C-alpha cells in the first residue's frame, strides 16, 4: 500500500549506501509496526461479536501485540466489522481521517468488504472500500476468529513490504456529517 514518492526515492538512492541504510531501518520499523497493530474498536454489527471473541481468551489477539484502543488517535488499524449504512459512512470516514499515519484498514465480513447480503438494500454502502482505502478483505459471514487472525497476519505481511518512505498521498477531505 502507499505509493513511494518518486522524488524522495531518487534522492535516497543518490547517497552511497543509502539504500542499505534505508532498507535496514525499514526492516526494523516494519517489524515494530507489524507487531504492534493497535486497532480501533470499530464494531458495527455481527462481526463485532466475532471480533470480541477473537480478542477473548480462546483466540487472544494480544499474542500478536494487537490491542484495542477506543480512540482513533492511538490506533494503527481500523477493523471495520459489520455493514456500513449511508448514515454511518461519514463517521467512518471521519474516524479514518482522525487516525495518524501510517494507518491501515481491514474490512471484516462480507458486508464491510462488498455490501454482503444487503447489497440490494438502499441504505447500505456496498463495501467500506467506497469510503476508505482497504488493505485486507476478510470474507465470511461472519468470519470465524481464525479467519480474522488470518487476515491480520496478511496485513502484517503487507506492512512488512512497505517502506517508511512510502508516503500515502493524502488530501484533506472534509466530511459534513
Amino acid at each position: 500500500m502507499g505509493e513511494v514518492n518518486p522524488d524522495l526515492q531518487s534522492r535516497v538512492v543518490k547517497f552511497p549506501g543509502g539504500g542499505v541504510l534505508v532498507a535496514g531501518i525499514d526492516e526494523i520499523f516494519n517489524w515494530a509496526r507489524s507487531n504492534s497493530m493497535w486497532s480501533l474498536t470499530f464494531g458495527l454489527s455481527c462481526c463485532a461479536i466475532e471480533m470480541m471473541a477473537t480478542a477473548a481468551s480462546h483466540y487472544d489477539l494480544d499474542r500478536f501485540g494487537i490491542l484495542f484502543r477506543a480512540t482513533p488517535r492511538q490506533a494503527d488499524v481500523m477493523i471495520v466489522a459489520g455493514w456500513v449504512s449511508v448514515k454511518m459512512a461519514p463517521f467512518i470516514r471521519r474516524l479514518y481521517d482522525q487516525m495518524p499515519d501510517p494507518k491501515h484498514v481491514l474490512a471484516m465480513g462480507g458486508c464491510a468488504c462488498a455490501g454482503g447480503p444487503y447489497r440490494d438494500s438502499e441504505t447500505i454502502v456496498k463495501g467500506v472500500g467506497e469510503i476508505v482505502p482497504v488493505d485486507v478483505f476478510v470474507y465470511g459471514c461472519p468470519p470465524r476468529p481464525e479467519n480474522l487472525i488470518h487476515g491480520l497476519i496478511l496485513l502484517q505481511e503487507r506492512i512488512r513490504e512497505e517502506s517508511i518512505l512510502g508516503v500515502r498521498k493524502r488530501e484533506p477531505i472534509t466530511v459534513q456529517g
Partner: protein
Amino acid sequence: MNGDLRDLHQEILDLGTQGMVMNMGPQHPSTHGVLRLILTLDGEEVMACEPVIGYLHRGLEKMAERRPYRHFLPFTDRLDYVCSLANNLACAQAIERLAGIEVPDRAQWIRVALMELNRIASHLLFLGTFGTDLGATTMLLYAFREREEALALLEAITGARLTYNWIRVGGLPDDMPENWDKGVLAFCDLLESRVGEYDRLLTDNPIFRRRTEGVGVIPAEDAIAYGLTGPTLRASGVEYDVRRWAPYEKYAEIDFDVVVLRDGDTFARYLARRLELEQSVRILRQVFDRMPEGPIASKVGKVLKAPPGIAFSQVESPRGELSFTMVSDGSPNPQRVHIRAPSFANLTVLADLVVGNKVADVVAILGSIDIVLGEVDR
C-alpha cells in the same frame, strides 16, 4: 420519572448555566454498537439525553417484501446477532401460523434446547460486556471463555458459530448429531460451577454493588407504560415471560421459574439475567429426558404460499418479547413483515432513565438494558 430533577435542571438553565453537550457515539466503546447518545451535561451530571439510532438500518423489512418467505430466514440471523436462533424461530413461527403448518414434537423439543443454549450464550455475553462497561474487563474474558464452549455446541449442531439459520418453516433441517445431548449436559455442569465464580468476581463485589444498586430505577408502572419486556421488565417486578405467558413450542410442559425481581434498578436487571442462566440450565436438563423419537420436519411444499391474513409470533428472546408480524396477500412473498424488536422497545426508556445520573451511570444503565443495535435498527 425524575420529574423533580428535570424541573430543577430547568431552573438551573433559566439561571443561565449552560449545559455541555457531549456526543457519546456512534463510535464509542460502550454503546454496544453504533448508538449515538447526545447528552447535555452539567458537570458530570446528565440533564438531558437524546438517543439517535438508525446507524445500522438496512431496510430488512423492506427486503423481506421482495423475497419468498423462506428466503428471509437467513436474514433474521443478523437482527439480534447475539441470539440468532430466537429470531429464526420467531420468523419461522410467524410463517407457520400464517400458513397453518404444524411442527413435529421432536423438532419442538430440539428447538427449545437450541433456544436455551443460545440464551445462555447471549446472557454470558451480557455479563461480560456489562462488566466491561463498569471497568471489570476480566469478566468479559471469563464470560467469553464459557460462551466459546456454548458456541462449540451450537456449531456442532448447526455448523455455524454465530449466525446459525437452523430453524426452518415446519421443523429443523437436520437432527441432533450423536452425543450432542451429552455435550450439552456436560456444559451445563461446567456452567453451574463457573456461575459461582462470576458471583465472586462481580455480583458480590462491593464496588460493583455500589455502582449498580439504586441506579436507574424503573418502577413497575413505568416499565409497563414503556412497553419494556424481558429481564428488563421482570427486574421491575412484572411477571411477563412469553415462555409462560403464551407458551410456544414445548415450554408449557417444562418446569422452570420466571425470574422476577422487585427493585427495578441496574443491579436487578443484571441479576435477572444472571439468574436466568440457572433457569436455562434447568430447562436444558429437562429437555433431553423427554424428547421423543420421530421426524424433525413436517412436509412443506416447495413454493410456500400463505392464505391472506395477518399473523404474529411471540418469542421470548434473551432481550424480551420478539415478535414478527406478517401480512400475507396470498402471493409467495409476504406483503409486509414487521419485527417488534425487544431492544427497540427497551431502548425507549433510556432517555428518561438517565436524566439526573452521572455519565458513568449512563454507561451502566445502557449496559443493563442490554440492547443489540442490529435489531434496534433493523
